[in-house]
């Protein structure tokens, strides 16, 4: 890097630090082509995406540096489970689900602001109000299977959990133990106006339906393998998942969607489309206690959650009865 560009970069970082604004450090060729793209077609360039400077973020080790020994095999297996969950650990994934861990944790759990594994790993054990006790990292992984994958929690010590924990530990090599590590979870999203179903529907039809389908059920590829994840309905995450909170969903969407165009929606658009997504029925919360009102009071008592709320005349939280196995499931 020449002197001039390093001065620019340092200045940019100082400005970013002072204002909390976002800079993505990129090399010059890319900046140039991205901005000419933007000028010609009004397409957001990558320099307006992702809210961080890559300088200040923890970088997980490169895949080629995975240890080449017995431990390395388990790490690798963890990565495979992460990217191909239903094929490798079908016993813990809901029958109908067409999600994989990497549907929401992009870049195989590496990407900052997409709930990266390295940031999660250094944040546990931790007290969680969700279940009101101190959770280990393994218990946190169990939660993902139970809620996000609408499946069953692998028992503690199960090879699936051991492999996922090993992969996470390895990705976190050299990271400080710090629940506030930059890039953890999803960045917060503001919403000057309350979330709106109709506005959200418009955003959805314009920016999301191409991949996730007008019916939110995702899409399979030409060999009938799950490709784009379902956002609601039988194939999606259940009412207990983090994504059923508008706040989490808006954070993920703003930073990462549409795929490859992260950061292109306004905060309000992200909030509205998250509201639209979470206004649809999905599989029941496994903690359901027989009463939607009581389950809401116990587990969903937040303005950002629509479980137990009537939307368009439908009381949300009824779950989906007799979910059919996904014809587009991943049977290879």
């Amino acid at each position, binding site marked *: 890097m020449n002197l001039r560009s390093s001065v620019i970069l340092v200045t940019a970082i100082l400005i970013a630090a002072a204002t909390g604004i976002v800079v993505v450090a990129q090399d010059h060729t890319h900046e140039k*082509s991205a901005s000419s*793209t933007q000028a*010609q077609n009004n*397409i*957001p360039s990558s320099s307006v995406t992702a809210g961080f400077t890559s300088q200040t973020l923890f970088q997980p080790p490169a895949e080629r540096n995975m240890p080449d020994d017995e431990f390395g095999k388990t790490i690798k297996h963890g990565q495979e489970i992460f990217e191909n969950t239903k094929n490798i650990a079908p016993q813990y994934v809901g029958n109908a689900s067409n999600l994989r861990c990497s549907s929401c944790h992009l870049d195989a759990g590496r990407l900052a602001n997409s709930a990266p594994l390295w940031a999660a790993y250094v944040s546990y054990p931790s007290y969680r109000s969700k279940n009101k006790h101190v959770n280990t990292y393994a218990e946190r992984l169990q939660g993902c299977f139970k809620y996000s994958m609408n499946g069953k929690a692998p028992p503690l010590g199960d090879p699936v959990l051991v492999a996922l924990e090993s992969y996470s530990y390895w990705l976190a090599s050299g990271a400080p133990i710090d629940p506030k590590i930059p890039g953890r979870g999803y960045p917060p999203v503001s919403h000057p106006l309350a979330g709106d179903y109709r506005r959200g529907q418009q955003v959805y039809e314009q920016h999301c339906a191409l991949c996730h389908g007008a019916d939110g059920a995702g899409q399979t*590829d030409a060999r009938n393998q799950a490709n784009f994840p379902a956002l609601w309905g039988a194939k999606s995450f259940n009412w207990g998942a983090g994504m059923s909170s508008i706040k989490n969903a808006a954070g993920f969407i703003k930073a990462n969607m549409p795929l490859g*165009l992260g950061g292109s929606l306004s905060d309000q658009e992200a909030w509205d489309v998250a509201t639209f997504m979470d206004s649809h029925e999905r599989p029941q919360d496994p903690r359901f206690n027989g009463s939607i009102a009581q389950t809401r009071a116990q587990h969903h008592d937040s303005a950002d959650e629509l479980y137990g709320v009537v939307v368009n005349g439908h009381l949300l939280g009824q779950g989906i009865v007799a979910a059919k196995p996904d014809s587009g499931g991943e049977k290879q």
Partner: protein
Amino acid sequence: MNLARADGAAIALRGNKRGVPACISCHGAHGEGMPANGYPRLAGLNAGYLETQLEAFANGQRVNAMMAPVAQTLNADERAAVAKYYAALNNPPDPKKMLAPTDSAGARLATQGRWSQNLPACTQCHGAMGVGVGASFPALAGQSSLYIENQLRAWQQATRAPGPLGLMKVIASKLSAADIQELAAYFSALPANNSTRKGSP
């Protein structure tokens, strides 16, 4: 729908009476394309996708001197019929291609992306092994490598319309000349799949 439906096979094999040449003269006897010339394989691609591309050539959104007169001289019915014909064609299994390289630079970029640049993996949209997803995300497996390179450069040079959400234009803008070569080598080496018809309407 018109009762006297256009005959897709006839157009492909013989062209039409208004001067459209037989598609096979450029796209091969079985829709396999002429890879070395950058004439794409059409066999097994999604019908909806093929029809959309023919429309784009006809209305000038997609610029190509060879395809523009062809597409303009077909009516909408004929475009739909010939698209269906090609979508239903099988690609004969190619045993040479069953073992695709998994550790080349192209394979890594195709299956992992380059997220430091917010570049997703190609397979996230084009399906595992590039088999294609629905009518919007065409199969890349077994496609002519020169054709793939030409398309990525066409987006860089704005001679191909940005397409759905402008996704490919943004993606192509993040690729270097070497990336393009490696990606094209990777996808062209994969076996053209035989089951894209399932994804057709």
